[in-house]
């Protein structure tokens, strides 16, 4: 008995709402057990108190359908509607709080019932027969899944009925690196080490410059020739390369400043960027 596949499958699926009791039986025997249990308690009230145990109206409908004790494909939808509506009415009478979806389902079923009772030619689209069939199909599918769940849970399960090795040694894979190189890389690397660390000789090439001293000599000498203003550019060597000219200009400018400081020359510039002019000061004129 304890080894049958459906045994205690539902115990494991019991939810927190005291449904362990409700689910302790094989699902096939639900309706009968439900009735029996309901009878054992004081009639309807006990049944309605389980309202919270239903997972929504479809769930309740399925259970009611099972009470018809026929194949779900042969249930009478009209009878089912009556069962449901009676159920809801009585729950209301007992002042049980009903979730909205139960009431919505009740209203819909009441509509369905009246539509089913109307003459055929007054039917709208979709027809009430179609709606009833749809409901029936849904109940069949839910019923099928519920049974499947019970059978699944009733299987021999690992950790409950079946056990794996308690203390497996475990498999380990150690990664090992195989290093690879070759002779060419080796001697090339050595060549590079040697080349990189070989003693080096630094060559500093002579760059064409005019030193401050030679500029000083040159400017003083040229200033001695005349008392007129001279453009600083006139002091530069005429045949100089551009690089030497730059150096000569800088040195000559510093030389001019030096001579001005010594009181031997004066410097004038009419405005920014205009030619810088230099002329000799008469000896003693500034003193």
């Amino acid at each position: 008995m304890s080894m049958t596949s459906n045994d205690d499958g539902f115990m494991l699926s019991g939810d927190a709402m005291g449904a362990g009791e409700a689910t302790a039986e094989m699902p096939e025997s639900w309706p009968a057990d439900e009735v029996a249990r309901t009878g054992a308690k004081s009639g309807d009230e006990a049944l309605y108190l389980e309202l919270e145990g239903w997972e929504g109206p479809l769930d309740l409908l399925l259970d009611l359908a099972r009470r018809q004790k026929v194949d779900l494909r042969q249930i009478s939808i009209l009878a089912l509607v009556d069962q449901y509506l009676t159920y809801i009415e009585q729950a209301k009478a007992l002042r049980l709080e009903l979730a909205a979806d139960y009431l919505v389902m009740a209203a819909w079923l009441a509509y369905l019932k009246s539509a089913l009772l109307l003459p055929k030619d007054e039917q709208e689209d979709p027809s009430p027969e179609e709606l009833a069939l749809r409901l029936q199909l849904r109940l069949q599918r839910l019923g099928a899944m519920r049974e499947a769940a019970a059978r699944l849970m009733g299987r021999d399960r690992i950790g409950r009925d079946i056990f794996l090795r308690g203390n497996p040694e475990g498999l380990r894979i150690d990664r090992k690196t195989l290093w690879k190189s070759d002779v060419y890389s080796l001697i090339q690397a050595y060549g590079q080490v040697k080349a990189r660390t070989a003693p080096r000789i630094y060559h500093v090439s002579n760059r064409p410059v005019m030193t401050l001293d030679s500029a000083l000599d040159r400017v003083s000498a040229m200033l001695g020739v005349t008392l007129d203003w001279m453009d600083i550019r006139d002091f530069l060597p005429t045949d100089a390369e551009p690089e030497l000219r730059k150096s000569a200009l800088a040195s000559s400018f510093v030389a001019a400043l030096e001579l001005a400081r010594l009181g031997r020359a004066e410097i004038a510039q009419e405005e920014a960027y205009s030619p810088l002019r230099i002329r000799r000061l008469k000896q003693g004129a500034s003193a």
Partner: protein
Amino acid sequence: MSGERSDDAVERALEATLFATEEPMTVDELAVHLGGLEKGSVREGLKALAHHYAERGVHLVERGKRWHFETAPDLAHLLRREREQVRRLSRAATEVLAVIAYHEPVSRAEIESIRGVQTSSGTLDVLMEAGWIKLAGRREVPGRPVIYATTPEFLDHFGLASRRDLPGIDELRATGLLDPVDDALEQAMGGDMDPDNPSECEADEEADEIAEPDA
């Protein structure tokens, strides 16, 4: 003679490896682990080994293409632990698991249309945490809903070699109980409103045609 000997060696190596492993192993994994053995000989070795253990206290079984040793089911009464090792599932979780297993891959909306109630997010979480279901991508329809499917661990836990072993799945499929309600309705309405006998319907073929895109 030497062939026999080498078969024996493969069998012993497989036995030792599968006893020692902490996780079930596929034929490929076993072949690699045993130093690039041919998959053919691994398969043969597994078959021989499973046969050897068939009547013993431990069995060698294949679950979702992965092999492991486990205790024989008929010895459950000796081994059942006092400390419950198996997660207790709520009825809702059990039902959701069944819907996913029998219909996979399914979206949450599809699960809800079968069960007729909303699925609390905790329910799917519990099943994911147990390692029995996984996200299986998205359905390429408006809204691109996430779809769910079962895992190899699910097959493992419930002792199923594959989903074809799901209890009653063949009957469910044959009776159309795994088809969407709309398809079944189409089929039933096409005929004489007789849902019991859809094969007699004239519109049978037509219904199939309509059903197919949804499948």
